């Protein structure tokens, strides 16, 4: 026998065009909202217009009798079978966690909460009838402002007696990973430098492009739920754990999912209600949200106040960092909402050698939309704080901000390096990334231009912003998650099926929603098994196919899921070896495997792995007692997080007369270890950059003084367009991760984590000589102008929201100016 397969060139590192694109560019897509089933009913939600109110009555009579309405349900129509929305990460044993009913019957805790659901034969009829549901509310005072809420002035949930949910603390002296931070700060007050700042992480909305949608079909032996979710496996677990339906009776499918960015990392009330209604009526049911509903009621992100104290010696060598956070949970402690700020707990010290560190986070309940993961989740907040502070320290010492970083960062000879937060950074080279970025950026030339503009008093000033970020990603070693009181593990599962025709099916527990897993994972398996890229099919996102998995978030799919794939593929090879030995009539010890071919050492005898698969399928001639299968699976639990890093440089022009900012240049050099597909990586970086830049310059979820979201449509929530953004210059340095076989590091969140402080540092740098040392995000022209002209950080947005309807004012009978 001879091998029939050509040895393929290595796939890893190739800029393969994506397998998934053919369907997407021709419109052959399966978004959840595209699914229609025989007899399918449509849901419309009735939502609270009040941030906090008791429900005194709900009159559904008119809605019930509207054309083609099949049913109208409120919370009291369901018992325990509705289930609850779970909190999978209680960060302290005494965390205050309000009950989270998908459809409360007594009290609403944010504007947008569901109080009734209308079921009709068409979506339009359901929507029409929803208008007829008459709900009487008794309004309660609402806890809206984060700082006031933390002081318990008004209670978001009166029966809890406090808005304070949990206080989470890490102290390096207590943990034995460093010194006492208060002593370091005291010492610096005497003979060094102390930088004290308070930064605002504004509230953001993930704003994935595909609105959430869910279809439930109760007519099979398993109840099937299709949902626009990042987490089909976790969702199935939550449905089973809270509704009493056995897990084995539930199938969850995430078909084509149009983006997530953490925003679809949730078990939603809408999913729970659709599940309950479909079961109750015994008919398939669909709910698709409008964009306004999505912005109002899908979870939000960030929303923190950060009080920061950095101590240093006179020469700028850092000695301590103390972090005191207030984090707005919104109305409920959602799936992992409480833990999001804790994901930043280990990252404020970043790439710098702080001898002492303390992190305190108080999570706070308010009557706003609940918050949870949004791209970066905890690490952007940490990176923003430290990278802004390092610029402030440089200004205080009077040196270039790159110099102060270099003075304090971990040098490449020091890896692996155990940080003051107790993490072991496995690899990195901050010097190399920075050197490359500086050269690409033309750093010295731009500094010269900046000086020239300052000297000339140019109304348009130039600022250079730096962010030498790192992050921890690849969630996560299960043991570590356990120690943080997270409710699940962080492993991932994969299986490899060797088909009779020599094709390969790969099943992964990761659940892609735009990341290109079908392509990148095919490249990994093609190399490992020595088969053609085209011969590998990647299957995911359906619990009937991928029965085991922990889904996609936290930049984990490649570094955890990819490693599971490698292990499963290796098992296939190990199982195939005895078959090869048997068929080639050689000793097992003489069988070698390389590039898809089993050969007998020292001979030209060999067989391709596909031929082995065919022989195993026939099973006519296998070693005695061998199970006729070489299919394999593996579950991989990572041994560590991994730590991408990079140097991002941003040049911003600031018009000091109007406050307008213009991005002139953005360069980044990211070290994400070995790269599987550079094309996909470039896309991840670009998209992350723009989301981070948008936090710096444009986006903010704004509530009025009644607790109504006034940025509840794309007219008001400013997503950047192609015309607002520029093309980027991206490059890489490579320090392979030492904790996984492929040497890869996560990249999904890196751009978003790094870019925000780079942009704000640049804006502040442009006007620092005018007495400005902070501008609150988003750095709108108005806020920049105010900072330049009156000092301070430009102030809050709240006051800038459109004033409420005032009947005493003349001319208020038109909608103009009323925000109506």
């Amino acid at each position, binding site marked *: 026998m001879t091998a029939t397969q050509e040895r393929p060139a290595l796939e890893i590192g190739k800029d393969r065009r994506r397998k998934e694109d053919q369907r997407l560019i021709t419109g052959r897509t399966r978004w959840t909202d595209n699914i229609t089933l025989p007899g399918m009913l449509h849901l419309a939600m009735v939502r609270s217009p009040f941030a906090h109110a008791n429900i005194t009555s709900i009159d559904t009579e008119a809605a019930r009798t509207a054309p083609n309405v099949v049913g109208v349900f409120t919370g009291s129509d369901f018992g325990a079978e509705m289930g609850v929305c779970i909190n999978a990460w209680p960060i302290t044993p005494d965390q205050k966690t309000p009950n989270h009913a998908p459809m409360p019957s007594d009290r609403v805790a944010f504007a947008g909460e569901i109080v009734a659901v209308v079921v009709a034969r068409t979506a339009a009829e359901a929507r029409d009838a929803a208008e007829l549901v008459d709900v009487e509310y008794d309004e309660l005072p609402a806890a809206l402002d984060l700082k006031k809420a933390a002081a318990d002035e008004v209670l978001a949930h009166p029966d809890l007696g406090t808005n304070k949910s949990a206080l989470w603390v890490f102290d390096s002296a207590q943990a034995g990973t460093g010194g006492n931070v208060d002593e370091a700060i005291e010492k610096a007050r005497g003979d060094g430098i102390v930088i004290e700042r308070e930064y605002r992480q504004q509230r953001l909305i993930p704003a994935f492009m595909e609105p959430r949608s869910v279809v439930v079909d109760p007519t099979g032996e398993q109840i099937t739920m299709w949902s626009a979710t990042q987490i089909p496996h976790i969702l199935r677990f939550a449905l089973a754990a809270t509704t009493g339906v056995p897990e084995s009776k539930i199938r969850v499918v995430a078909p084509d999912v149009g983006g997530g960015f953490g925003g679809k990392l949730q078990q939603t009330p809408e999913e729970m209600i659709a599940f309950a209604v479909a079961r109750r009526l015994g008919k398939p049911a669909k709910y698709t949200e409008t964009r306004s509903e999505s912005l109002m009621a899908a979870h939000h992100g960030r929303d923190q106040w950060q009080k920061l104290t950095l101590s240093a010696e006179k020469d700028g060598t850092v000695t301590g960092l103390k972090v005191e956070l207030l984090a707005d949970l919104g109305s409920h402690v959602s799936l992992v909402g409480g833990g999001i700020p804790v994901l930043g707990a280990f990252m404020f010290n970043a790439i710098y050698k702080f001898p002492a560190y303390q992190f305190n986070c108080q999570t706070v309940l308010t009557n706003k939309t609940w918050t949870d993961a949004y791209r970066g989740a905890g690490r952007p907040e940490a990176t923003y704080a430290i990278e802004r502070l390092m610029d402030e320290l440089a200004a205080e010492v009077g040196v270039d901000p790159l110099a102060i970083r270099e003075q304090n960062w971990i040098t490449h000879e020091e890896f692996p390096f155990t940080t003051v937060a107790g993490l072991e950074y496995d690899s990195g080279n901050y010097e190399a990334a920075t050197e490359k970025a500086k050269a690409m950026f033309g750093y010295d030339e731009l500094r010269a231009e900046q000086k020239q503009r300052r000297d000339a008093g140019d109304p348009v000033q130039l600022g250079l912003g730096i962010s030498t970020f790192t992050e921890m990603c690849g969630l996560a070693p299960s043991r570590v998650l356990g120690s943080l009181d997270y409710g699940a593990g962080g492993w991932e599962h994969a299986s490899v099926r060797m088909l009779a025709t020599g094709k390969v099916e790969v099943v992964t527990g990761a659940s892609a929603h735009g990341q290109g897993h079908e392509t990148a994972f095919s490249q990994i398996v093609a190399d490992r098994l020595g088969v053609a890229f085209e011969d590998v099919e990647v299957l995911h996102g359906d619990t009937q196919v991928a029965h085991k998995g922990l889904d996609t978030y936290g930049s984990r799919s490649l570094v955890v899921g990819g490693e599971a794939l490698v292990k499963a593929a290796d098992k296939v090879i190990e199982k195939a070896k005895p078959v090869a030995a048997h068929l080639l009539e050689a000793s097992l010890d003489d069988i070698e495997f390389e590039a898809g071919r089993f050969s007998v050492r020292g001979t030209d005898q060999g067989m391709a792995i596909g031929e082995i698969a065919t022989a195993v399928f026939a099973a006519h001639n296998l070693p005695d007692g061998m199970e006729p299968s070489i299919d394999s699976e593996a579950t991989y639990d990572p041994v560590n997080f991994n730590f991408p890093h990079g140097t991002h440089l941003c040049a911003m022009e600031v018009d000091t007369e109007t406050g307008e900012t213009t991005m002139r240049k953005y360069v980044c050099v990211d070290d994400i270890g070995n790269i599987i597909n550079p094309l996909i990586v470039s896309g991840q970086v670009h*998209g992350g950059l723009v989301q981070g830049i948008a936090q710096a310059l444009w986006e903010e979820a704004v509530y009025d003084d009644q607790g109504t979201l006034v940025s509840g449509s794309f007219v008001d929530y400013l997503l950047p367009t192609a015309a607002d953004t520029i093309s*980027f210059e991206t490059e890489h340095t490579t320090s392979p991760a030492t904790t996984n076989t492929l040497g890869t590091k996560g990249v999904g969140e890196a751009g978003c984590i790094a870019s925000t402080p780079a942009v704000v540092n640049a804006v502040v740098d442009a006007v620092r000589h005018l007495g400005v040392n902070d501008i609150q995000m988003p750095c709108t022209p108005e806020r920049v102008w105010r900072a330049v002209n009156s000092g301070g950080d430009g102030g809050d947005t709240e006051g800038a929201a459109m004033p409420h309807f005032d009947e005493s004012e003349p001319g208020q009978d038109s909608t103009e100016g009323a925000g109506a």
Partner: protein
Amino acid sequence: MARISLKVDGAQVSDDVEPRMLLVQYLREKVGKTGTVVGCDTSNCGACTVHLDGRSVKSCNVLAVQADGHEVTTIEGLADTVEGDLHPVQEAFRECHGLQCGFCTPGMIMQSVDLLGDNPNPTEEEVRLGLEGNLCRCTGYHNIVKSVLHAAKGSADQGVSA
């Protein structure tokens, strides 16, 4: 109900529709053209962009009855077949990785085709302004802009060789 007759992706269709029905709802719910999607309710996102008599429109901003007697092309009718012959703009989006989740892609491609019809050799700035009505959350627009410029260059090169 109003009776409308129009051409969708080359095929003659005729239906009774509610006067309030949007063109995008008609395309998705009645004609089964689910390649065209809805991303917002304020005509900001452009995900539903199709061609009406050869010009791009946001199909959430057109009533189905307004399309009566006209010709609509969706993303599903842009290429001759679903498997092979792609439109050069579709091909460019794949070549340049101009999409990730793909939800905005049908609208992005339809708008890009119209943009290049008006201006076969746009500058980067002109592409960016021409796509201002279409939102994407994945790509940061970098590779979308590159895709459109790539498609323009491709047709220019073809023009030279032909």
